């Protein structure tokens, strides 16, 4: 279990902000082995700062990061896979050599690193570029190399900052599959993303950060049930005033009236709608993650 407890971080201020800027204001969450944790939040909410602190490239002012009950140390982090938001590659180094080099740095033997590199290049679709310098690759392919570097060794925890940004749909699928495989192998995966549909599809649980605090977290289902379902009814050409006395709001779009409500007797509403006109749609709608997100950070 990876536990992040009460992280605080304030960046030193400049002349325009003498008090500095509070980046993290007591953020806490936990990720279980085999869990995929989606980290969402507006730009500047504190996602990257949190991940950098987890990876030890930034020091928190206070708070703790622990792995399997122990405070996280340098040797633990060597078994973590990390992809920072700001991508970095040796532009002149060859693709295969670069991935292999990072495998070696994580303590793999030359032979294992080579094999793992071959496997990953196949899986991520950059195998035929193995001997090209990275700078000759398209940005999308460079991104795949970057991922391969994070995945090459025998990882215990995976921390990825915006891994899906800039990828084409095929690459997104390849990456999603690779992450799910790691997850099934018992690795906790944390990734941040602005692509909320993707987070909703892939993640077991989600944390929503705003202004350095975790404003909502839990499984996607939990977050949804916390929000009330919305009943949405679409009636074409209804008699005027049909919805008088019903809860919720009615919006008119051409000859269609759309009623949205989170309370009231749905059967009564349906009867009224049928009497009033032609019912085109009647159903409960679960809020999407996007709606939950907007609600949470508002």
């Amino acid at each position, binding site marked *: 279990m990876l536990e992040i407890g009460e992280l605080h971080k304030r960046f030193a201020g400049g002349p325009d902000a003498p008090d500095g800027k509070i980046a993290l204001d007591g953020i806490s969450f936990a990720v279980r082995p085999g869990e995929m944790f989606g980290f969402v939040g507006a730009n500047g909410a504190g996602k990257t700062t949190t991940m950098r602190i987890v990876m030890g490239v*930034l020091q928190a002012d206070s708070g703790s990061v622990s792995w399997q009950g122990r405070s996280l140390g340098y040797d633990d982090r060597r078994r973590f896979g990390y992809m920072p938001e700001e991508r970095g590659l040796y532009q002149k180094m060859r693709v295969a050599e670069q991935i292999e080099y990072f495998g070696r740095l994580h303590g793999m033997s030359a032979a294992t690193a080579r094999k793992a590199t071959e496997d990953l290049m196949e899986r991520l679709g950059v195998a035929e570029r193995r001997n090209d310098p990275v700078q000759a690759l398209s940005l999308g392919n460079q991104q795949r190399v970057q991922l391969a570097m994070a995945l090459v060794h025998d990882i215990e925890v995976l921390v990825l900052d915006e891994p899906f940004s800039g990828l084409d749909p095929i690459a997104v699928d390849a990456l999603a599959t690779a992450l799910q495989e790691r997850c099934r192998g018992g690795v906790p995966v944390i990734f941040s993303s602005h692509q909320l549909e993707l987070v909703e599809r892939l993640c077991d649980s989600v944390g929503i950060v705003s202004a350095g605090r975790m404003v909502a977290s839990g499984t996607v289902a939990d977050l949804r049930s916390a929000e009330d379902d919305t009943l949405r009814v679409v009636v074409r050409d209804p008699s005027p005033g049909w919805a008088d006395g019903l809860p919720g709001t009615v919006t008119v779009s051409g000859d269609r009236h759309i009623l949205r409500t989170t309370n009231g007797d749905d059967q009564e509403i349906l009867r009224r709608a049928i009497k009033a006109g032609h019912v085109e749609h009647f159903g409960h709608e679960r809020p999407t993650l996007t709606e939950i997100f907007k609600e949470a950070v508002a």
Partner: protein
Amino acid sequence: MNELMLVARREIVTQLRTKAFVTGLIITAVLVAAVSFAPKLLDGPNSYTLGTVNSQRLPLEAAAPDSEFTWRAFSDEAAAKRAVLAKDVDAVLVNGTKVLTDGEIDDQLGVLLQSVNREAKLGAAGVSIPPLKMESVGADTRYQAARTGLAVVLVIVLFMMLIGQVGMVAMGVVEEKGSRIVEILLSTLRPWQLFGGKIVGLGAVGLINLVTILTVGLTAAMVSGIAGDFPPGMPGLVAGVVVWFVLGYAFFATLAGAFASLVSRLEEVNSVLTPIIMVIMVSYFVAFYATIDPTGTLAMVMSYVPPFSSIVMPVRMAATEVPLWQAGLATAAMVAAVLAALAFGAKVYQRAVLRTGARVRLGDVVRVR
């Protein structure tokens, strides 16, 4: 340590593979070889063609064993004059009493002819003068020309190598910081492993360069024959040069890398490196001056003061004889300076390299915590 070596190995492999390294090495090797042959080509052994008219040949060979003399006999003075004006001969001895030349006689040849003539005449009269015994109570200056030549070549080579390798370290640090790859590296490596690996790796590349230059230079000198003029103790000098290069490189590269870690863009490297380049330049000028006046106060003093000693001392060692205790003292002082630079540089690097964006102020890094 293992990780440090992995980092170093990557630096070496990456550098050795670049075209710039290979062509640079070939060009330097050719230049050094050319320098080693140049003295031979420019002022090879003195050789004179001399003529006689009604005279005995003078025993010049015995007095100047390094020079070559070719003799021609002329039937009369007129024929001899024609040969002198046609530059077929350098000088003609007429009747054993006068010498014909075209213009002023070559200094050395003139002195030689006079003294050998005097000796021959005195000898014939039964007077024998034991030759003066020369004894130097100062430094051994027999090899002065060769020593100065060696020192000049050395100061240029050391300067170029230091500037080149130190620049590489700085660029490498900024390349990693600017591309943010340092963030991934430092989630796996400790800062000293990454920084140390880079310094060791690029230092090894520098050593490969230096050893190649020394080998080519010495081989060429042996082939061309100027190695015969070299002073004794060449192996010691070569070893000294390598040691001083390593010390100088370690000092300057550590500081250059640390200063470079303050900036995130290659364009900013020059500005942070300026103080270091200035110090190397000053060392270079003092060392150059030391080739001319290796026993002067300036050269003496600066050869003990780190980091100037890293160029001045090896140059002094080449230009003149340096007592062992002096070399030892200078080395000890430089080693202490290198250790201080390593401690300071590692601290700066560790604190600055992850602070991307605007240039980090050195004061901020040194003061915090």
